[in-house]
């Protein structure tokens, strides 16, 4: 049963996840029926513009959205356990322990009134039930592991005494302190400058190898995806519009949105090769979720729009290892 083995290797299976928010103006569908699988030890990238539902997907998996106003439907199977069926106490045991999350803003994701050591050891004590001293030395150990210099001393410092890169390391130390099987990294390097980004990427790669953690990497930075991810999902307005292994996606993007995304990256020297004068952009802006376009959601901005695009929702097409949501390939 080769199929069975493959099924077992899937750590997380999200199917038909739909997250909606009840707001004053009506109902907003932030994530609209997406499917995603994460295999053990793999890094899955999710890319898309701001507001396409990447972060909401991650928050839905950990059930961190307050409901109401949020309403989550579908199934989120983590090691054959549907996270949406768990009660609050059960999900708390999962959070930080089996599944952890890193946030975008290292400046605000650490509590300003608690020392770094206190915050990391709090997570450890919560899930491992160890004594205060043991948790503290474990926290110092974690700080050492994320290469914070003189960790014994740094553990006594407050977040404002650390630089942005160090805070993100501390955040990673906190997220990994209980050796989670799955790490949701929501724009982990966005707020950092490029050299620090590279260090954080190296660090995450190394720790992934060490802890055998699967990572869901959420970003709008395609360079980071190319560096870290094995498979990539491209999201647009709450839908996964394309899914492909990273090499295929970069070499031959199928969805016009993915093509647009890749063309809008500046490559030094590319101008000469293709004779292009200006950096390409995707025209228009992401429409409001309240005014969802009919048919394909991308059609008002699409360069290869056809008649059918504005009338019917595009089908999911399998092509050359890609899964793409577009009429072009039907």
């Amino acid at each position, binding site marked *: 049963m080769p199929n069975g083995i493959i099924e077992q290797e899937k750590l997380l299976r999200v199917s038909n996840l739909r997250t909606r928010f009840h707001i004053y103006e009506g109902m907003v569908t932030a994530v609209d029926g997406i499917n995603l699988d994460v295999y053990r030890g793999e890094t899955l990238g999710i890319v898309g513009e701001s507001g396409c539902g990447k972060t909401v997907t991650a928050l839905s998996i950990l059930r961190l959205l307050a409901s109401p106003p949020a309403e989550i439907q579908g199934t989120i199977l983590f090691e054959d356990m549907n996270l949406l069926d768990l009660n609050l106490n059960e999900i708390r045991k999962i959070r930080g322990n089996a599944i952890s999350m890193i946030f*975008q803003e290292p400046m*605000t994701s650490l509590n300003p009134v608690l020392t770094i050591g206190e915050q990391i050891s709090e997570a450890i004590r919560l899930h491992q039930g160890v004594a205060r001293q043991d948790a503290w030395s474990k926290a110092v150990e974690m700080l050492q592991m994320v290469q914070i210099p003189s960790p014994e001393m740094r553990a006594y410092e*407050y977040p404002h005494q650390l630089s942005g890169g160090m805070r993100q390391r501390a955040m990673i130390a906190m*997220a990994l302190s209980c050796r989670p099987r799955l790490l949701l990294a929501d724009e982990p390097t966005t707020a950092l400058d490029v050299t620090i980004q590279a260090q954080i990427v190296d660090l995450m790669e190394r720790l992934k190898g060490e802890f055998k953690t699967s990572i869901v990497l959420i970003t709008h930075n395609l360079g980071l995806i190319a560096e870290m991810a094995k498979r990539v999902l491209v999201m647009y307005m709450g839908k996964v519009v394309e899914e492909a292994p990273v090499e295929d996606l970069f070499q031959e993007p199928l969805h016009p949105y993915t093509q647009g995304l890749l063309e809008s990256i500046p490559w030094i020297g590319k101008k000469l090769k293709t004779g292009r004068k200006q950096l390409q952009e995707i025209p228009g802006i992401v429409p409001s979720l309240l005014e969802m376009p009919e048919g394909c959601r991308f059609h008002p901005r699409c360069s290869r729009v056809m008649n059918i695009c504005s009338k019917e929702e595009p089908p999911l097409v399998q092509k050359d290892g890609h899964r793409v949501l577009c009429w072009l390939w039907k």
Partner: protein
Amino acid sequence: MTETTQPHAWGTQRSADSQLKRNWAKLRRNKAALFGGILILIYLITALLASVLFPGSPSAPNLIHSLERPSIKHPLGTDELGRSILGRVIYGSRVSLLIAIGVVFVGLLVGVPLGLVSGYYGGKVDFGIQRVTDTLLAFPGFLLALALVSVLGVGLKNTIISVGISMVPIYIRLVRGCTLSVKEQTYVEAAKAVGTRDRIILLRHILPNVMIPITIQTSLGMGMGILSAAALGFLGLGVQPPTPEWGAMLGSGRAYLFHAPHVATFPGMAIFLAVLGFNLAGDGLRDVLDPRFRL
């Protein structure tokens, strides 16, 4: 013990020290706050050393010397029962300090937890707590205290409870408002993401971050408490004679305002200076601690 497991605490201490030094320097530059602080200090010393500053009983009548003007023997004169006003003002500071502390204690004890819960959980809990708060806030604070005293009866304990309860809605609103903004911070979400329980999030992550407005309100609340308690005393509904209480002294001195004005003047000044001290210090604390004024 924590001392043995955390031997390198100097990093923290150094920064806490420098923060404290910065704040202290700022506070010292603020002349009004400094003046307020000095007033509070004098007030505290007076209350603590009352028996040293004024040996003898402040309540024993001595009718032969009633309503004497200020003299060497009685620097602030005597009241209608011949008791030294100086002594009564000095001992009165004890009563008013007790009231000030008691009042904010009641306010904090009831208001802070309700405000935290109301802001953090929202929904029906919030709705319920806030409608009660609305009702309480609909009365002017002093009127509420007055109504409560008329139910509970007079005396020191009931004064503290009534004035304290009249302050509860202020704390609820303040803490709820701050909680609403703090709970949206990423670090609260991050704490949830590692599986922290609500109780710990409230006590360890949210409460310390709303301490600054609470501290400022506490200083202002002490001034307000003294004033309200004195007003109750003035009306004869507060602390009862012969306990020396500034408001009651003012009230009884009112009858002799024309031929012995010192009887009402000195307790009035004591109330004025104590309230001024707490208000100036509260304003100063706000200027120093409020993050909007930082840097």
